[in-house]
Protein backbone atom coordinates (compact mmCIF):
# COMPACT_ATOMS: atom_id res chain seq x y z
CA UNK A 1 0.00 0.00 0.00
CA UNK A 2 1.44 3.35 -0.96
CA UNK A 3 0.45 6.74 0.21
CA UNK A 4 1.75 10.19 -0.37
CA UNK A 5 3.53 12.12 2.32
CA UNK A 6 0.56 14.48 2.51
CA UNK A 7 -1.90 11.62 2.97
CA UNK A 8 0.21 10.13 5.72
CA UNK A 9 0.38 13.46 7.48
CA UNK A 10 -3.38 13.84 7.24
CA UNK A 11 -4.12 10.37 8.53
CA UNK A 12 -1.65 10.90 11.35
CA UNK A 13 -3.46 14.09 12.26
CA UNK A 14 -6.83 12.36 12.17
CA UNK A 15 -5.39 9.51 14.19
CA UNK A 16 -4.09 11.86 16.84
CA UNK A 17 -7.53 13.43 17.13
CA UNK A 18 -8.95 9.95 17.50
CA UNK A 19 -6.52 9.16 20.29
CA UNK A 20 -7.28 12.41 22.09
CA UNK A 21 -11.01 12.68 21.48
CA UNK A 22 -12.21 9.23 20.46
CA UNK A 23 -13.53 8.17 23.84
CA UNK A 24 -15.16 11.43 24.76
CA UNK A 25 -16.74 11.81 21.33
CA UNK A 26 -18.20 8.32 21.47
CA UNK A 27 -19.59 8.83 24.97
CA UNK A 28 -20.98 12.22 24.05
CA UNK A 29 -22.72 10.63 21.07
CA UNK A 30 -24.01 7.89 23.34
CA UNK A 31 -25.33 10.47 25.80
CA UNK A 32 -27.02 12.25 22.93
CA UNK A 33 -28.50 9.20 21.23
CA UNK A 34 -28.86 6.66 24.00
CA UNK A 35 -27.82 4.08 21.45
CA UNK A 36 -24.39 2.43 21.22
CA UNK A 37 -24.89 1.52 17.57
CA UNK A 38 -25.75 5.08 16.61
CA UNK A 39 -22.74 6.37 18.54
CA UNK A 40 -20.33 3.86 17.02
CA UNK A 41 -21.63 4.34 13.50
CA UNK A 42 -21.56 8.13 13.64
CA UNK A 43 -18.13 8.29 15.26
CA UNK A 44 -16.50 5.81 12.89
CA UNK A 45 -18.10 7.40 9.83
CA UNK A 46 -17.01 10.88 10.88
CA UNK A 47 -13.39 9.78 11.22
CA UNK A 48 -13.65 7.85 7.94
CA UNK A 49 -14.91 10.93 6.13
CA UNK A 50 -12.14 12.99 7.65
CA UNK A 51 -9.61 10.48 6.34
CA UNK A 52 -11.19 10.54 2.89
CA UNK A 53 -11.23 14.31 2.70
CA UNK A 54 -7.59 14.54 3.61
CA UNK A 55 -5.98 17.94 3.61
CA UNK A 56 -9.25 19.69 2.72
CA UNK A 57 -9.89 19.71 6.46
CA UNK A 58 -7.59 21.85 8.53
CA UNK A 59 -9.26 21.62 11.90
CA UNK A 60 -9.89 17.91 12.10
CA UNK A 61 -11.13 17.94 15.69
CA UNK A 62 -13.92 20.45 15.15
CA UNK A 63 -14.88 18.93 11.82
CA UNK A 64 -15.10 15.38 13.19
CA UNK A 65 -17.24 16.48 16.13
CA UNK A 66 -19.57 18.51 13.91
CA UNK A 67 -19.89 15.71 11.41
CA UNK A 68 -20.38 12.97 14.00
CA UNK A 69 -23.26 14.79 15.67
CA UNK A 70 -24.88 15.55 12.33
CA UNK A 71 -24.59 11.91 11.32
CA UNK A 72 -26.00 10.75 14.65
CA UNK A 73 -28.91 13.17 14.41
CA UNK A 74 -29.56 12.03 10.84
CA UNK A 75 -29.49 8.40 11.91
CA UNK A 76 -31.91 9.03 14.76
CA UNK A 77 -34.18 10.96 12.42
CA UNK A 78 -34.28 8.03 10.01
CA UNK A 79 -35.19 5.77 12.89
CA UNK A 80 -37.90 8.19 13.98
CA UNK A 81 -36.20 8.74 17.33
CA UNK A 82 -34.71 12.20 17.01
CA UNK A 83 -37.38 14.11 18.91
CA UNK A 84 -37.88 14.03 22.64
CA UNK A 85 -39.29 10.71 23.68
CA UNK A 86 -38.82 7.61 25.74
CA UNK A 87 -35.33 6.47 26.58
CA UNK A 88 -33.98 3.76 24.26
CA UNK A 89 -34.25 0.38 25.92
CA UNK A 90 -30.52 -0.32 25.75
CA UNK A 91 -29.77 2.85 27.67
CA UNK A 92 -32.36 1.97 30.31
CA UNK A 93 -30.61 -1.33 30.83
CA UNK A 94 -27.10 0.12 30.90
CA UNK A 95 -25.90 -0.35 34.49
CA UNK A 96 -23.25 2.33 34.09
CA UNK A 97 -25.72 5.15 33.63
CA UNK A 98 -27.66 7.52 35.86
CA UNK A 99 -31.19 6.46 34.90
CA UNK A 100 -32.83 9.72 35.91
CA UNK A 101 -30.34 11.79 33.97
CA UNK A 102 -30.68 9.66 30.86
CA UNK A 103 -34.46 9.89 31.03
CA UNK A 104 -34.29 13.66 31.49
CA UNK A 105 -31.88 14.02 28.57
CA UNK A 106 -34.37 12.31 26.32
CA UNK A 107 -37.00 14.78 27.42
CA UNK A 108 -35.01 17.53 25.76
CA UNK A 109 -35.21 18.57 22.14
CA UNK A 110 -32.38 17.28 19.93
CA UNK A 111 -30.50 20.56 19.81
CA UNK A 112 -30.89 21.16 23.52
CA UNK A 113 -29.56 17.66 24.12
CA UNK A 114 -26.49 18.18 21.90
CA UNK A 115 -25.60 21.47 23.55
CA UNK A 116 -26.25 20.19 27.07
CA UNK A 117 -24.10 17.12 26.49
CA UNK A 118 -21.23 19.19 25.09
CA UNK A 119 -21.48 21.68 27.95
CA UNK A 120 -21.90 19.34 30.90
CA UNK A 121 -20.24 16.17 29.72
CA UNK A 122 -17.56 17.40 27.32
CA UNK A 123 -16.94 20.53 29.43
CA UNK A 124 -16.91 22.76 26.38
CA UNK A 125 -17.50 26.51 26.65
CA UNK A 126 -20.02 28.15 24.34
CA UNK A 127 -17.50 29.20 21.68
CA UNK A 128 -16.18 25.65 21.47
CA UNK A 129 -19.70 24.22 21.28
CA UNK A 130 -20.32 26.59 18.41
CA UNK A 131 -17.23 25.23 16.65
CA UNK A 132 -18.19 21.64 17.29
CA UNK A 133 -21.79 21.94 16.15
CA UNK A 134 -21.64 24.60 13.49
CA UNK A 135 -24.40 26.46 15.34
CA UNK A 136 -24.18 30.19 15.73
CA UNK A 137 -23.23 31.13 19.29
CA UNK A 138 -26.62 32.79 19.72
CA UNK A 139 -28.36 29.55 18.91
CA UNK A 140 -26.03 27.65 21.23
CA UNK A 141 -26.92 29.94 24.11
CA UNK A 142 -30.62 29.70 23.35
CA UNK A 143 -30.49 25.90 23.44
CA UNK A 144 -28.28 25.91 26.51
CA UNK A 145 -30.53 28.23 28.44
CA UNK A 146 -33.71 26.37 27.60
CA UNK A 147 -32.07 22.97 27.95
CA UNK A 148 -30.77 23.72 31.45
CA UNK A 149 -34.10 24.87 32.66
CA UNK A 150 -35.92 21.95 31.11
CA UNK A 151 -33.37 19.50 32.49
CA UNK A 152 -33.75 20.87 35.99
CA UNK A 153 -37.52 20.67 35.69
CA UNK A 154 -37.32 17.08 34.57
CA UNK A 155 -34.89 16.19 37.34
CA UNK A 156 -37.09 17.85 39.92
CA UNK A 157 -34.48 20.39 40.90
CA UNK A 158 -36.18 23.59 42.08
CA UNK A 159 -33.01 25.61 42.49
Amino acid at each position, binding site marked *: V*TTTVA*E*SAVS*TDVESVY*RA*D*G*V*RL*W*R*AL*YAFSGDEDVA*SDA*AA*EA*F*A*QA*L*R*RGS*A*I*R*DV*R*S*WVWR*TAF*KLAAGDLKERGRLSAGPVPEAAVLDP*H*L*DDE*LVAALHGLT*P*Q*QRIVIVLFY*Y*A*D*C*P*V*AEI*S*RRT*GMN*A*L*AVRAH*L*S*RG*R*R*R*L*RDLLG*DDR
Partner: protein
Amino acid sequence: MTDLRTRFRTFDRVPTPDYWSDALNRAGGDMDAGAPDRRLLAVIVALALVAAVGGAVIVGGGLLPMPGPSATPGPTEPSECPVPSGTPSPSARPSVAAGPLDISWEAVTGIESTASIYGMAFADDQWFALGMRDLGGSGEEDGTQDAAIWRSDDGRTWVAAEIRAVDAEGDYSVVHDLVDVDGVLVAIGSWGAMQSDQLAWVTWLSTDGGATWTESRDTPGPFGAMQAITPGGPGLVAAGWTYAGTIPYDSYFVTSRDGMAWDEVGAPLVAAAVHGLGALGERLVAVGVDWTDPPLAYEAQPTAWYSDDDGETWTAVELPGAAPDNLDHPQDVVPFNDGLVAVGGSMDVGSWITPDGETWERFDVALNAAFGAGAALDGALVAVGNTPLAGGQEIGPGVTWTSRDAQSWSAGPVLSEGGVGLRAVAESDGVVVAGGTCDRVDPCQAVMWRGEVVR
Protein backbone atom coordinates in the same frame (compact mmCIF):
# COMPACT_ATOMS: atom_id res chain seq x y z
CA MET B 1 -29.33 17.37 44.40
CA THR B 2 -26.03 16.33 42.89
CA ASP B 3 -24.46 18.92 40.65
CA LEU B 4 -25.37 18.41 37.00
CA ARG B 5 -21.77 18.29 35.87
CA THR B 6 -21.05 15.57 38.42
CA ARG B 7 -24.05 13.56 37.26
CA PHE B 8 -22.80 13.73 33.68
CA ARG B 9 -19.55 12.14 34.80
CA THR B 10 -21.46 8.87 35.02
CA PHE B 11 -21.02 8.61 31.26
CA ASP B 12 -17.30 8.18 31.95
CA ARG B 13 -18.13 4.74 33.30
CA VAL B 14 -19.43 3.50 29.97
CA PRO B 15 -16.95 1.17 28.23
CA THR B 16 -16.08 2.56 24.84
CA PRO B 17 -15.27 0.51 21.75
CA ASP B 18 -12.13 1.12 19.73
CA TYR B 19 -13.60 2.10 16.39
CA TRP B 20 -10.46 3.25 14.61
CA SER B 21 -10.22 0.15 12.46
CA ASP B 22 -13.87 0.57 11.51
CA ALA B 23 -13.11 4.13 10.45
CA LEU B 24 -10.17 2.94 8.39
CA ASN B 25 -12.26 0.30 6.67
CA ARG B 26 -14.94 2.83 5.88
CA ALA B 27 -12.32 5.22 4.53
CA GLY B 28 -11.38 2.63 1.97
CA GLY B 29 -8.64 0.78 3.73
CA ASP B 30 -5.93 2.62 1.87
CA MET B 31 -4.75 4.85 4.67
CA ASP B 32 -1.34 3.50 5.50
CA ALA B 33 -0.90 5.24 8.80
CA GLY B 34 -3.66 3.35 10.50
CA ALA B 35 -3.35 -0.01 8.76
CA PRO B 36 -3.30 -2.96 11.15
CA ASP B 37 0.19 -3.96 12.12
CA ARG B 38 0.44 -7.66 11.38
CA ARG B 39 3.25 -8.02 13.87
CA LEU B 40 0.70 -7.34 16.53
CA LEU B 41 -1.68 -9.96 15.26
CA ALA B 42 -0.93 -12.42 18.00
CA VAL B 43 -1.35 -9.76 20.62
CA ILE B 44 -4.60 -8.63 19.05
CA VAL B 45 -6.00 -12.13 19.05
CA ALA B 46 -5.06 -12.49 22.68
CA LEU B 47 -6.61 -9.16 23.59
CA ALA B 48 -9.74 -10.00 21.67
CA LEU B 49 -10.03 -13.21 23.62
CA VAL B 50 -9.57 -11.38 26.88
CA ALA B 51 -12.12 -8.78 25.86
CA ALA B 52 -14.60 -11.46 24.88
CA VAL B 53 -14.18 -13.18 28.20
CA GLY B 54 -13.49 -10.41 30.61
CA GLY B 55 -14.85 -7.31 28.94
CA ALA B 56 -13.46 -3.98 30.05
CA VAL B 57 -10.51 -3.58 32.35
CA ILE B 58 -10.89 -1.64 35.53
CA VAL B 59 -8.23 1.03 35.70
CA GLY B 60 -8.10 3.67 38.37
CA GLY B 61 -11.66 3.12 39.40
CA GLY B 62 -13.07 3.59 35.90
CA LEU B 63 -13.63 1.36 32.94
CA LEU B 64 -11.30 1.68 30.01
CA PRO B 65 -11.89 0.15 26.61
CA MET B 66 -9.82 -2.73 25.46
CA PRO B 67 -7.45 -1.87 22.62
CA GLY B 68 -8.96 -2.75 19.27
CA PRO B 69 -7.41 -4.61 16.34
CA SER B 70 -5.31 -1.74 15.11
CA ALA B 71 -1.76 -0.50 15.26
CA THR B 72 -3.19 2.69 16.62
CA PRO B 73 -3.27 2.88 20.38
CA GLY B 74 -6.79 3.05 21.68
CA PRO B 75 -8.18 6.44 22.60
CA THR B 76 -7.08 7.70 25.95
CA GLU B 77 -9.36 8.67 28.78
CA PRO B 78 -10.81 12.09 28.06
CA SER B 79 -9.73 15.17 29.89
CA GLU B 80 -11.25 18.62 29.79
CA CYS B 81 -12.79 19.83 26.55
CA PRO B 82 -9.75 20.19 24.30
CA VAL B 83 -9.57 23.63 22.82
CA PRO B 84 -7.04 24.97 20.32
CA SER B 85 -3.56 24.90 21.74
CA GLY B 86 -0.59 27.14 21.26
CA THR B 87 -2.50 30.29 22.04
CA PRO B 88 -0.20 32.90 23.42
CA SER B 89 -1.45 34.86 26.34
CA PRO B 90 -3.16 37.95 24.96
CA SER B 91 -1.78 39.97 27.84
CA ALA B 92 1.74 39.07 26.79
CA ARG B 93 1.36 40.29 23.27
CA PRO B 94 3.54 43.18 22.24
CA SER B 95 0.79 44.48 19.99
CA VAL B 96 -1.24 45.72 22.94
CA ALA B 97 0.40 49.12 22.90
CA ALA B 98 0.91 49.24 19.17
CA GLY B 99 -2.72 49.39 18.11
CA PRO B 100 -4.31 52.31 16.36
CA LEU B 101 -6.39 53.07 19.44
CA ASP B 102 -5.23 53.30 23.01
CA ILE B 103 -8.29 52.63 25.15
CA SER B 104 -8.41 52.86 28.91
CA TRP B 105 -10.84 50.19 30.12
CA GLU B 106 -12.69 49.77 33.40
CA ALA B 107 -15.02 46.98 34.48
CA VAL B 108 -18.63 48.00 34.98
CA THR B 109 -19.76 46.46 38.21
CA GLY B 110 -23.19 48.00 38.56
CA ILE B 111 -24.76 45.47 36.24
CA GLU B 112 -25.22 41.96 37.54
CA SER B 113 -22.46 39.62 36.42
CA THR B 114 -25.03 36.95 35.67
CA ALA B 115 -26.47 39.10 32.87
CA SER B 116 -25.87 38.13 29.28
CA ILE B 117 -25.23 41.03 26.93
CA TYR B 118 -25.99 40.36 23.27
CA GLY B 119 -26.38 43.89 21.93
CA MET B 120 -25.08 47.34 22.72
CA ALA B 121 -26.27 50.64 21.30
CA PHE B 122 -25.98 54.36 21.75
CA ALA B 123 -29.30 56.01 20.90
CA ASP B 124 -31.28 59.00 22.08
CA ASP B 125 -28.16 60.23 23.94
CA GLN B 126 -28.05 57.11 26.10
CA TRP B 127 -26.30 53.78 26.22
CA PHE B 128 -28.35 50.63 25.96
CA ALA B 129 -27.26 47.15 26.83
CA LEU B 130 -29.44 44.38 25.44
CA GLY B 131 -29.76 40.74 26.28
CA MET B 132 -31.17 38.68 29.07
CA ARG B 133 -30.98 38.72 32.82
CA ASP B 134 -31.11 36.05 35.43
CA LEU B 135 -34.35 35.82 37.36
CA GLY B 136 -33.19 33.39 39.98
CA GLY B 137 -30.13 35.20 41.21
CA SER B 138 -27.57 32.48 40.71
CA GLY B 139 -26.65 32.73 37.10
CA GLU B 140 -27.42 31.09 33.85
CA GLU B 141 -26.90 27.74 35.49
CA ASP B 142 -30.50 27.94 36.59
CA GLY B 143 -31.80 28.59 33.12
CA THR B 144 -34.22 31.19 34.42
CA GLN B 145 -33.60 34.26 32.33
CA ASP B 146 -35.75 36.74 30.54
CA ALA B 147 -35.22 39.50 28.01
CA ALA B 148 -33.61 42.57 29.49
CA ILE B 149 -32.65 46.09 28.52
CA TRP B 150 -30.42 48.30 30.62
CA ARG B 151 -29.73 51.98 30.02
CA SER B 152 -27.11 54.41 31.17
CA ASP B 153 -26.24 58.05 30.71
CA ASP B 154 -22.49 57.59 31.07
CA GLY B 155 -21.79 53.90 30.51
CA ARG B 156 -20.85 53.45 34.16
CA THR B 157 -24.12 53.49 36.05
CA TRP B 158 -26.85 51.30 34.63
CA VAL B 159 -30.50 50.74 35.43
CA ALA B 160 -32.74 47.98 34.18
CA ALA B 161 -35.60 49.20 32.04
CA GLU B 162 -39.13 48.00 32.64
CA ILE B 163 -40.31 45.54 30.04
CA ARG B 164 -44.01 44.89 29.69
CA ALA B 165 -43.66 41.34 28.50
CA VAL B 166 -46.29 39.23 26.80
CA ASP B 167 -45.36 36.22 28.90
CA ALA B 168 -42.47 36.19 31.29
CA GLU B 169 -43.17 32.71 32.56
CA GLY B 170 -41.61 29.68 31.03
CA ASP B 171 -40.30 31.28 27.87
CA TYR B 172 -36.84 32.05 26.63
CA SER B 173 -36.45 35.57 25.27
CA VAL B 174 -33.49 37.74 24.44
CA VAL B 175 -32.93 41.21 22.97
CA HIS B 176 -30.41 41.40 20.12
CA ASP B 177 -30.36 44.88 18.61
CA LEU B 178 -31.84 48.36 18.85
CA VAL B 179 -32.34 51.45 16.67
CA ASP B 180 -33.83 54.90 17.11
CA VAL B 181 -36.59 55.83 14.66
CA ASP B 182 -37.50 59.47 15.11
CA GLY B 183 -37.62 59.23 18.89
CA VAL B 184 -39.22 55.80 19.03
CA LEU B 185 -36.75 53.18 20.19
CA VAL B 186 -37.18 49.84 18.49
CA ALA B 187 -35.53 46.68 19.81
CA ILE B 188 -35.63 43.26 18.19
CA GLY B 189 -34.94 39.78 19.45
CA SER B 190 -36.01 36.20 19.76
CA TRP B 191 -38.25 34.14 21.96
CA GLY B 192 -39.16 30.53 22.21
CA ALA B 193 -40.98 28.09 24.39
CA MET B 194 -38.80 26.09 26.72
CA GLN B 195 -39.71 22.75 25.21
CA SER B 196 -38.91 23.79 21.70
CA ASP B 197 -35.86 24.30 19.54
CA GLN B 198 -37.66 27.04 17.65
CA LEU B 199 -36.93 30.72 17.94
CA ALA B 200 -39.53 33.28 16.93
CA TRP B 201 -39.25 37.00 16.48
CA VAL B 202 -40.21 39.63 18.97
CA THR B 203 -40.02 43.41 19.07
CA TRP B 204 -40.00 45.91 21.92
CA LEU B 205 -40.94 49.58 21.53
CA SER B 206 -40.26 52.50 23.82
CA THR B 207 -41.69 55.99 23.46
CA ASP B 208 -40.33 57.36 26.74
CA GLY B 209 -36.63 57.32 26.06
CA GLY B 210 -36.11 53.68 26.95
CA ALA B 211 -37.53 53.72 30.49
CA THR B 212 -40.36 51.33 29.63
CA TRP B 213 -40.73 48.90 26.78
CA THR B 214 -43.75 47.16 25.36
CA GLU B 215 -43.19 43.72 23.95
CA SER B 216 -44.96 42.49 20.84
CA ARG B 217 -44.98 39.00 19.48
CA ASP B 218 -47.93 39.79 17.23
CA THR B 219 -45.78 40.36 14.22
CA PRO B 220 -46.85 39.50 10.69
CA GLY B 221 -44.67 37.55 8.33
CA PRO B 222 -42.85 34.32 8.75
CA PHE B 223 -41.88 32.66 11.93
CA GLY B 224 -38.28 33.32 12.82
CA ALA B 225 -35.77 34.99 15.10
CA MET B 226 -34.83 38.60 14.53
CA GLN B 227 -31.07 39.03 14.45
CA ALA B 228 -30.03 42.31 12.85
CA ILE B 229 -31.59 45.66 12.11
CA THR B 230 -30.47 48.77 10.28
CA PRO B 231 -32.00 52.04 9.13
CA GLY B 232 -32.87 51.68 5.45
CA GLY B 233 -35.64 51.00 3.01
CA PRO B 234 -38.85 52.66 4.15
CA GLY B 235 -37.35 53.26 7.61
CA LEU B 236 -36.03 50.03 9.02
CA VAL B 237 -34.79 46.79 7.55
CA ALA B 238 -34.29 43.73 9.70
CA ALA B 239 -33.11 40.23 9.02
CA GLY B 240 -34.17 37.07 10.77
CA TRP B 241 -33.88 33.32 10.66
CA THR B 242 -36.56 30.71 10.28
CA TYR B 243 -34.78 28.82 13.00
CA ALA B 244 -36.34 25.61 14.20
CA GLY B 245 -33.29 23.97 15.68
CA THR B 246 -31.80 22.42 12.59
CA ILE B 247 -29.17 23.53 10.11
CA PRO B 248 -29.59 24.65 7.41
CA TYR B 249 -32.28 27.19 7.99
CA ASP B 250 -33.45 30.16 5.91
CA SER B 251 -33.15 33.90 6.34
CA TYR B 252 -35.68 36.54 5.48
CA PHE B 253 -35.95 40.29 5.48
CA VAL B 254 -38.66 42.53 6.86
CA THR B 255 -39.17 46.27 6.63
CA SER B 256 -41.04 48.80 8.68
CA ARG B 257 -41.66 52.53 8.69
CA ASP B 258 -42.03 52.88 12.43
CA GLY B 259 -41.06 49.61 14.07
CA MET B 260 -44.67 48.75 14.81
CA ALA B 261 -45.96 47.31 11.54
CA TRP B 262 -43.64 44.99 9.65
CA ASP B 263 -43.79 43.52 6.17
CA GLU B 264 -41.80 40.70 4.73
CA VAL B 265 -39.94 41.77 1.61
CA GLY B 266 -38.61 39.63 -1.18
CA ALA B 267 -38.13 35.92 -1.08
CA PRO B 268 -36.30 34.22 1.78
CA LEU B 269 -32.65 33.35 1.36
CA VAL B 270 -32.90 29.59 1.35
CA ALA B 271 -30.34 27.69 3.42
CA ALA B 272 -28.59 30.85 4.50
CA ALA B 273 -28.00 32.73 7.75
CA VAL B 274 -27.74 36.50 7.78
CA HIS B 275 -25.62 37.64 10.74
CA GLY B 276 -25.14 41.33 10.05
CA LEU B 277 -26.78 44.14 8.11
CA GLY B 278 -25.39 47.43 6.85
CA ALA B 279 -26.00 50.06 4.25
CA LEU B 280 -23.95 51.91 1.64
CA GLY B 281 -26.07 54.79 0.50
CA GLU B 282 -29.25 53.26 -0.88
CA ARG B 283 -27.70 49.82 -1.14
CA LEU B 284 -28.39 47.33 1.63
CA VAL B 285 -25.65 44.83 2.43
CA ALA B 286 -25.98 41.64 4.46
CA VAL B 287 -23.27 39.21 5.55
CA GLY B 288 -23.49 35.66 6.80
CA VAL B 289 -23.17 32.12 5.53
CA ASP B 290 -24.79 30.01 2.85
CA TRP B 291 -25.23 26.25 3.06
CA THR B 292 -26.53 25.69 -0.48
CA ASP B 293 -23.32 24.66 -2.16
CA PRO B 294 -20.64 24.34 0.51
CA PRO B 295 -17.06 23.71 -0.52
CA LEU B 296 -17.00 20.82 1.91
CA ALA B 297 -19.83 18.68 3.19
CA TYR B 298 -21.46 19.87 6.42
CA GLU B 299 -19.79 23.28 6.16
CA ALA B 300 -20.96 26.73 5.14
CA GLN B 301 -19.79 29.30 2.63
CA PRO B 302 -19.12 32.85 3.87
CA THR B 303 -21.45 35.01 1.82
CA ALA B 304 -22.57 38.60 1.35
CA TRP B 305 -25.77 39.78 -0.27
CA TYR B 306 -26.71 43.21 -1.55
CA SER B 307 -30.00 44.78 -2.52
CA ASP B 308 -30.70 47.96 -4.46
CA ASP B 309 -34.47 47.82 -4.13
CA ASP B 310 -35.06 48.06 -0.38
CA GLY B 311 -34.67 44.35 0.16
CA GLU B 312 -37.02 43.06 -2.53
CA THR B 313 -34.26 41.21 -4.35
CA TRP B 314 -30.84 40.18 -3.14
CA THR B 315 -27.73 39.27 -5.06
CA ALA B 316 -25.41 36.79 -3.39
CA VAL B 317 -21.65 37.25 -3.47
CA GLU B 318 -19.46 34.36 -2.43
CA LEU B 319 -16.90 35.72 0.00
CA PRO B 320 -13.40 34.38 -0.36
CA GLY B 321 -12.71 32.00 2.50
CA ALA B 322 -9.63 30.51 4.06
CA ALA B 323 -10.23 26.82 3.45
CA PRO B 324 -13.12 24.46 2.73
CA ASP B 325 -13.66 23.82 6.41
CA ASN B 326 -13.20 27.45 7.32
CA LEU B 327 -14.95 28.88 10.31
CA ASP B 328 -14.25 32.45 9.35
CA HIS B 329 -17.88 33.40 9.05
CA PRO B 330 -18.60 37.13 8.93
CA GLN B 331 -20.65 38.06 11.97
CA ASP B 332 -21.22 41.77 11.49
CA VAL B 333 -20.47 44.66 9.17
CA VAL B 334 -19.69 48.34 9.82
CA PRO B 335 -18.59 51.37 7.77
CA PHE B 336 -14.94 51.55 6.79
CA ASN B 337 -13.11 53.73 4.25
CA ASP B 338 -16.28 54.80 2.42
CA GLY B 339 -17.14 51.12 2.19
CA LEU B 340 -17.71 48.38 4.70
CA VAL B 341 -15.69 45.94 6.75
CA ALA B 342 -16.97 42.61 8.00
CA VAL B 343 -15.23 40.41 10.54
CA GLY B 344 -15.91 37.18 12.30
CA GLY B 345 -14.74 33.70 12.87
CA SER B 346 -13.80 31.07 15.31
CA MET B 347 -10.16 30.04 15.10
CA ASP B 348 -10.14 31.02 11.45
CA VAL B 349 -10.71 34.72 11.89
CA GLY B 350 -11.42 36.58 8.70
CA SER B 351 -11.77 40.21 7.75
CA TRP B 352 -13.37 41.34 4.52
CA ILE B 353 -13.56 44.82 3.05
CA THR B 354 -15.72 46.09 0.23
CA PRO B 355 -16.07 49.47 -1.46
CA ASP B 356 -19.56 48.69 -2.78
CA GLY B 357 -20.99 45.52 -1.22
CA GLU B 358 -20.35 43.67 -4.46
CA THR B 359 -16.59 43.27 -4.59
CA TRP B 360 -14.97 41.87 -1.49
CA GLU B 361 -11.40 41.29 -0.43
CA ARG B 362 -10.52 38.91 2.36
CA PHE B 363 -7.61 39.20 4.79
CA ASP B 364 -6.52 36.11 6.66
CA VAL B 365 -6.24 37.96 9.91
CA ALA B 366 -5.80 34.72 11.82
CA LEU B 367 -2.22 35.01 10.64
CA ASN B 368 -1.83 38.16 12.71
CA ALA B 369 0.02 37.69 15.96
CA ALA B 370 -2.84 39.53 17.63
CA PHE B 371 -5.12 36.53 17.23
CA GLY B 372 -4.46 33.34 19.12
CA ALA B 373 -5.49 29.95 17.82
CA GLY B 374 -8.57 30.09 19.99
CA ALA B 375 -9.77 33.54 19.04
CA ALA B 376 -13.51 33.80 18.46
CA LEU B 377 -15.29 36.88 17.12
CA ASP B 378 -19.03 36.46 17.33
CA GLY B 379 -20.46 39.76 16.23
CA ALA B 380 -19.13 42.53 18.43
CA LEU B 381 -17.99 45.13 15.91
CA VAL B 382 -18.10 48.90 15.86
CA ALA B 383 -16.45 51.67 13.89
CA VAL B 384 -14.54 54.08 16.13
CA GLY B 385 -14.11 56.83 13.61
CA ASN B 386 -12.57 54.92 10.74
CA THR B 387 -11.06 52.28 12.99
CA PRO B 388 -12.94 49.00 13.30
CA LEU B 389 -12.98 47.64 16.85
CA ALA B 390 -13.99 44.01 17.27
CA GLY B 391 -14.71 42.18 20.48
CA GLY B 392 -14.51 38.50 21.18
CA GLN B 393 -12.57 36.09 23.31
CA GLU B 394 -9.42 34.03 23.39
CA ILE B 395 -10.80 30.66 24.48
CA GLY B 396 -11.74 32.21 27.83
CA PRO B 397 -10.73 35.82 28.34
CA GLY B 398 -12.59 38.67 26.66
CA VAL B 399 -10.42 40.69 24.28
CA THR B 400 -10.87 43.51 21.79
CA TRP B 401 -8.98 44.02 18.57
CA THR B 402 -8.49 47.13 16.46
CA SER B 403 -7.05 47.80 13.04
CA ARG B 404 -6.20 50.74 10.83
CA ASP B 405 -6.53 48.85 7.58
CA ALA B 406 -8.69 45.83 8.45
CA GLN B 407 -5.70 43.67 7.63
CA SER B 408 -3.23 44.10 10.49
CA TRP B 409 -4.93 43.86 13.86
CA SER B 410 -3.77 44.57 17.38
CA ALA B 411 -5.14 43.00 20.54
CA GLY B 412 -6.13 45.24 23.39
CA PRO B 413 -5.64 44.30 27.02
CA VAL B 414 -7.43 41.29 28.43
CA LEU B 415 -10.70 42.54 29.88
CA SER B 416 -11.50 39.43 31.84
CA GLU B 417 -9.40 36.49 32.88
CA GLY B 418 -12.50 34.37 33.21
CA GLY B 419 -14.60 32.97 30.42
CA VAL B 420 -16.35 36.01 29.03
CA GLY B 421 -17.06 36.28 25.35
CA LEU B 422 -17.58 39.86 24.22
CA ARG B 423 -20.67 39.83 22.04
CA ALA B 424 -21.54 43.50 21.68
CA VAL B 425 -19.80 46.83 21.50
CA ALA B 426 -20.92 50.41 20.87
CA GLU B 427 -19.14 53.73 20.63
CA SER B 428 -20.00 57.38 21.00
CA ASP B 429 -17.72 60.38 21.17
CA GLY B 430 -14.63 58.43 22.15
CA VAL B 431 -16.35 56.25 24.73
CA VAL B 432 -16.65 52.54 24.03
CA VAL B 433 -18.85 50.13 25.96
CA ALA B 434 -18.47 46.39 25.50
CA GLY B 435 -20.57 43.60 26.91
CA GLY B 436 -20.72 39.88 26.70
CA THR B 437 -21.71 36.61 28.19
CA CYS B 438 -20.16 34.54 30.92
CA ASP B 439 -19.13 31.31 29.26
CA ARG B 440 -18.63 29.12 32.26
CA VAL B 441 -20.75 27.99 35.14
CA ASP B 442 -18.32 29.69 37.47
CA PRO B 443 -19.49 33.24 38.18
CA CYS B 444 -17.81 35.96 36.17
CA GLN B 445 -16.60 39.12 37.82
CA ALA B 446 -18.13 41.37 35.19
CA VAL B 447 -19.75 41.13 31.80
CA MET B 448 -19.48 44.77 30.78
CA TRP B 449 -16.61 47.21 30.34
CA ARG B 450 -16.37 50.89 29.61
CA GLY B 451 -13.43 52.34 27.75
CA GLU B 452 -12.22 55.78 26.85
CA VAL B 453 -10.13 56.37 23.79
CA VAL B 454 -6.93 57.99 25.03
CA ARG B 455 -5.48 58.59 21.58
